[in-house]
Structures are given as structure tokens and as C-alpha cells.
């Protein structure tokens, strides 16, 4: 991911001299594009993107000069964003945030207030604070995804391990059941489940975990089969270790890392799935905010009038998914050589 250019070694001074102006100019351009009214929206967006990219490139050079070696700044920016959004999501109830879901109290607040007019990122059609909703939305979205990954990894990982270890009929049955789960495209399965389940955090998390189980089973099973053939397992078996002990002490430690790497990738997949479901109106219902239903508020001409209603949750969603993808790719490249190629 934007792998640092290592072809030529630059002296530190050159790096600082090119990096710092680039960083400052990029930030200035982005800031100007964000606030100016001179040019049309589409040009502003392009200038903003160009400014941000220039600033990141500049930051990379500065970091290279300061640390003395090439630094993957994008990865660190991603980690920084995740720290910020996770921290804000956890602390949301104790932060001095505006009204995020009380439509009655919103009656007295201005609707569609522009960002800046007393509200950091403006208000929506019920007079609810968009910034506060974005943070509380992070809380819901990430909570749902983490819960689902937790259930999926535990159940899928265990079933896959056992099935790959004992093989035979159990393995075949597990295969057929997980193939049946895979036989329905993920989003269709979610919509079908959405018809039945009440749209609460708990049931959405349960529905999403069903998506992760089959791939977890496959990964855990494949890794178990490879590990179970290794000599140290044979040695442990020859020493008279019970099957439980073999599974727990010999197999589990070797299967857990690739499974956890997949779990990181899964988090971003599930955040997207939850957002899609809420966007379609089947997931968590407003006024409880999630990024998906916040983006859906822009439908029907609202987006054209008040772009920030859609832009704020979209940027949050994109940055979060992007950062988790980045982390997941690094984790897989390191601990799961089997699927790193993807």
C-alpha cells in the first residue's frame, strides 16, 4: 500500500526541503478548498483530494527524514484514525456531544444548520447534531461488527478445527452445512434474516456472525489439516497425548494467528455489511444513528441541498473500512501466508 519508494537513497536535507513545503502546501490547499466558495463543488472536491494526497506525500518525506528510514505513513495515519474513532466511540456517553437521537429535543434546534453555525458539522432534518450522530454511529457500527466477529471467530474457528481434526463423517456434514450457508449470497441472506429479526444491535450482530462462520470454518479447517500432519503433532500423539490435549496445546496455537488475521479483515467486511443493511432500511432503525442510516438520510434530494449530511458519515465509514483493510492486509501478510496473495 503506497509502498515507500526505496529505489534511491535521498539525503535527509533534500527530504526535509521537499517534504515540508509539500506538507504545508497540501494542507493549505485542502483547507482553502474546504472553506472557499469561489469555485464549484466538484472542483473543490478535486482540490481537496489533491491537497490531502500532497500532504500525505509530504508527511512521508518528513517522517523519512526524521526517522532516518522509509516509513509507511498511510498505515500510521490509519492506526491514528482507528485510535481516534474507537476512543471516541467508547467514550461517547461521557463526551460533551450534542443531541444525537432525541427527536423531541431536536424540535427546538435549527434543522439543516450549516456546519459551523454553532454545530461543528451541522444538524439533520430533525435538528439532531451530525457530529454527535457520527460518533454515536461509530459506537453502533463498530460494536455490531466486533460482536459479530467475536461470535463468528469463536464458533467458526472451533467447528473448523474439530472438523479438520476428526475428519470423516463429521467433516462431511460440517462441509455440507457451511456450503449451504455459502450457497446464499451474503447480502441476500442478511435481507432474508432482516425480514424476521427485530432490528436491534444484538440480532443484527447475530445475523452478521452467520456470514463469517463459513469462511472461518474453512480457514480453520484447512490450517488444522496442514498442522495435524506435522511431526510435532505425531510426536505428541506418540507420547500418549489425548485428543483434547492435542487440539488445545498443539493445534490451537498454530491455527489461531491466521484465524485472527482473517478476523481483522472480517471486521471491515462486516462494517460494510451493517452499513449496507442500514442504508437499505433493514438494519438498525433511525433515530438511533449508524453510518448506514445516516447516509440514507441524504436520499430524495437532501444530498443535493445539504451535502454534509452524506459526506460526514461517508468519510467516517470510508476511513474506518480503509484502515481496517490496511491492518488486515498487514496481519495476513505476516501471519497467514496462505491467503496473503489475495
Amino acid at each position: 500500500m503506497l509502498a515507500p519508494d526505496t529505489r534511491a537513497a535521498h539525503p535527509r536535507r533534500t527530504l526535509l526541503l521537499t517534504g515540508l513545503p509539500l506538507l504545508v502546501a497540501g494542507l493549505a490547499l485542502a483547507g482553502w478548498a474546504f472553506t472557499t466558495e469561489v469555485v464549484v463543488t466538484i472542483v473543490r472536491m478535486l482540490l481537496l483530494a489533491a491537497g490531502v494526497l500532497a500532504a500525505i506525500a509530504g508527511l512521508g518525506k518528513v517522517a523519512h527524514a526524521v526517522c532516518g528510514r522509509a516509513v509507511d505513513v498511510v498505515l500510521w495515519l490509519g492506526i491514528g484514525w482507528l485510535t481516534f474513532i474507537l476512543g471516541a466511540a467508547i467514550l461517547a456517553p461521557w463526551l460533551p456531544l450534542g443531541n444525537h437521537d432525541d427527536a423531541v429535543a431536536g424540535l427546538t434546534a435549527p434543522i439543516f444548520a450549516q456546519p459551523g453555525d454553532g454545530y461543528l458539522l451541522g444538524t439533520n432534518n430533525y435538528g439532531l447534531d451530525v457530529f454527535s450522530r457520527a460518533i454515536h454511529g461509530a459506537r453502533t457500527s463498530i460494536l455490531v461488527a466486533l460482536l459479530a466477529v467475536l461470535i463468528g471467530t469463536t464458533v467458526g474457528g472451533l467447528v473448523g478445527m474439530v472438523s479438520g481434526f476428526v475428519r470423516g463423517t463429521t467433516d462431511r456434514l460440517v462441509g455440507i452445512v457451511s456450503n449451504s450457508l455459502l450457497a446464499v449470497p451474503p447480502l441476500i441472506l442478511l435481507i432474508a434474516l432482516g425480514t424476521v429479526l427485530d432490528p436491534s444491535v444484538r440480532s443484527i450482530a447475530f445475523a452478521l456472525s452467520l456470514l463469517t462462520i463459513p469462511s472461518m470454518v474453512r480457514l480453520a479447517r484447512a490450517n488444522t489439516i496442514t498442522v495435524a500432519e506435522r511431526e510435532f503433532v505425531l510426536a505428541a500423539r506418540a507420547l500418549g497425548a489425548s485428543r483434547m490435549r492435542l487440539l488445545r496445546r498443539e493445534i490451537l496455537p498454530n491455527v489461531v494467528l491466521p484465524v485472527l488475521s482473517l478476523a481483522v479483515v472480517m471486521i471491515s467486511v462486516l462494517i460494510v455489511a451493517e452499513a449496507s443493511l442500514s442504508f437499505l432500511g433493514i438494519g438498525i432503525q433511525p433515530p438511533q444513528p449508524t453510518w448506514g442510516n445516516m447516509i440514507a438520510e441524504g436520499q430524495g434530494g437532501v444530498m443535493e441541498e445539504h451535502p454534509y449530511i452524506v459526506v460526514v458519515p461517508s468519510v467516517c465509514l470510508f476511513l474506518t473500512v480503509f484502515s481496517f483493510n490496511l491492518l488486515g492486509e498487514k496481519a495476513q501478510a505476516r501471519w497467514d501466508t496462505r491467503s496473503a496473495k489475495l
Partner: protein
Amino acid sequence: MLRRLLISTLELVAVLFLVSLGVFLLLSLVPGDPAVALLGEGRTPQEYEAMREQLGLNQPLLSRYGDWLGGVLTGDLGTSLVPPQTEVLDRILSALPVSLELAVLGLVMALVIALPLAMWSAYHQGGRADRVISAATFGLLSMPSFLLGIVLIAVLVNALGIFPRNEWVRLGDGIGGNLQHAFLPALTIALMEAAMFTRILRNDLVTTLNEDYILAARARGMSPLRIMVSDALRPSSFSLVTILGLSIGRLVGSTVIVEYLFALPGMGKLVIDAANQGNYPVVQGAVLVIALIYVASNRLIDGSYGYLDPRTRRARA
């Protein structure tokens, strides 16, 4: 070989059976009374009772499943609970072509975008173009399809006014109008897939380009384009085909979302509307049909490896 085929067919039937059972049981748990949903509020208890009798809701679950499955096998998927109370099968048959067109168009566009990008990227491996393409495709992959669709609408429709955003024109009513309206939704689907395809194909191409026979071709003075297209592309495309199979599931998902976003009358819109209305016969039928198409196309792709890569033929036989 025949034995293998038989076993895999049996497994396929078992999987489809489980899917149908799952779909049926799941949607029998729908809260609320279908008879009330169908007749509306304020009728006499006798009328509701008669409707329940007519729908067969008073029978035990298992015999209802048997009836439903029997109907499915003879092509009768039941009747929609919400007006217009048409046959579910008719609804599906009128929605399916829209989705199939979008998916096929999206897939073709994705390949048209991905092949040159991957070749360009692999040829200039490690260079500026390669890094920019790698970053751009990685960014695209972090974009949920509905977000991508919204961005495309905001830029191409609202800001630049290149594309119209109005009613869907059926393929039968004029191919020009149909393509004009299908282009943007298909592009939304295509960009997601293209990002994935480009990354996969680029990595395989880089490996292939390091082979000796490519060096030999280069030494003989063949042009880079010729080497790429006639020597490197075919041996590098196996991962792409595997991914093609896996991407069908994602393709169905993004088609659903794109149809909702652009208000196109396809399978996705059918399922989502039915799910929101609690119209369970439609959801049951549509999910079953989608699963059938999905599983069948995956089997087809599994079977095609033998034709593409002779090495797997021997290993499997």
C-alpha cells in the same frame, strides 16, 4: 470421473435442499399474521380463519413445507401477499432479466477496465504508475458499493450532468435507451470488481513476467504489448478465474444495492421491498432462485478449471 460427478451432484442437491428448508423455516417465523396482512384490519374472525385455511397456515409446519417444496418442484412458488397479488414466479421472471443484464454488463466492464490496468501496472512494476494504481484500487476496495454509487451520482449526474437519472428502459423497448440507463449502475458494479481483478491479475502477471521464456521473447525483440497479450496473459489468468467465481456472490450483493440506489426493477428491489412489507412468499421464492443461480454458476466455474488448466485435469481424474 463419473463417480466424482455423481457425488458432487448429490452434494449440490443436499445443499439446495438445506437452503430451501432454511429459507422456509426462517420465514415461517415472521412475526404477525399473514392473513391479517393480506386482508387488512377490521374483518371478521371467520374471514381471517377462512384465509388462513386457504393459505394452509393451519396445517403442521412440516406438511406446509412439503406442499411448498412440491409447488417449487412444479414451478409454482405461490402468490404474493401484497397487491398486486400475482404469481411469485411471474414477479421473479420479470425482475430477473434486469439483474442479469446489470451483472453481466458490470462484469464485462470490470474486465475491460482491469485487463489494461493490470498489464500496465505489471509491466511498470514498482514504478510510479504501479504504485498509483495499487493505491487507487486499494482505496476503491474500501468503498462500500452504495457509497461508490452515491459518489458517481453526485459527480456524473448532479455536478456534470452527463447521465440522466430517470426511469428504467426495458431491453425490449430499445437498446440505446436501455444502455444509456444501465451504464451508470453497471459502472458502479464494475469499478468494485475491477479493483479486485486488477490487483489479482497484476500479481500473477508479475510472477509470470519473471519466467525465462518471457526473457527469451524479450531478447528476440518482441514488443512489450505482444509479450503481454500473447505470452503472459493466459498463464496468469487462473487466479482471476477463481476470483471470478468468488466474486459472483459479491456481484449479487452489489447488484441488489445498486438496484435500490437507482430504483431499478430487478431482483434486489423485489427482495428488499418484499422484506420491508413482510411479503414472505416473494422473499422465499426470490432467495431460492438466487441461491440456485449462485450455486449453479459456482459449480460451472469449478468445472471450467479443467479446460483452462490441463494440470488440474489429471489431478482430479
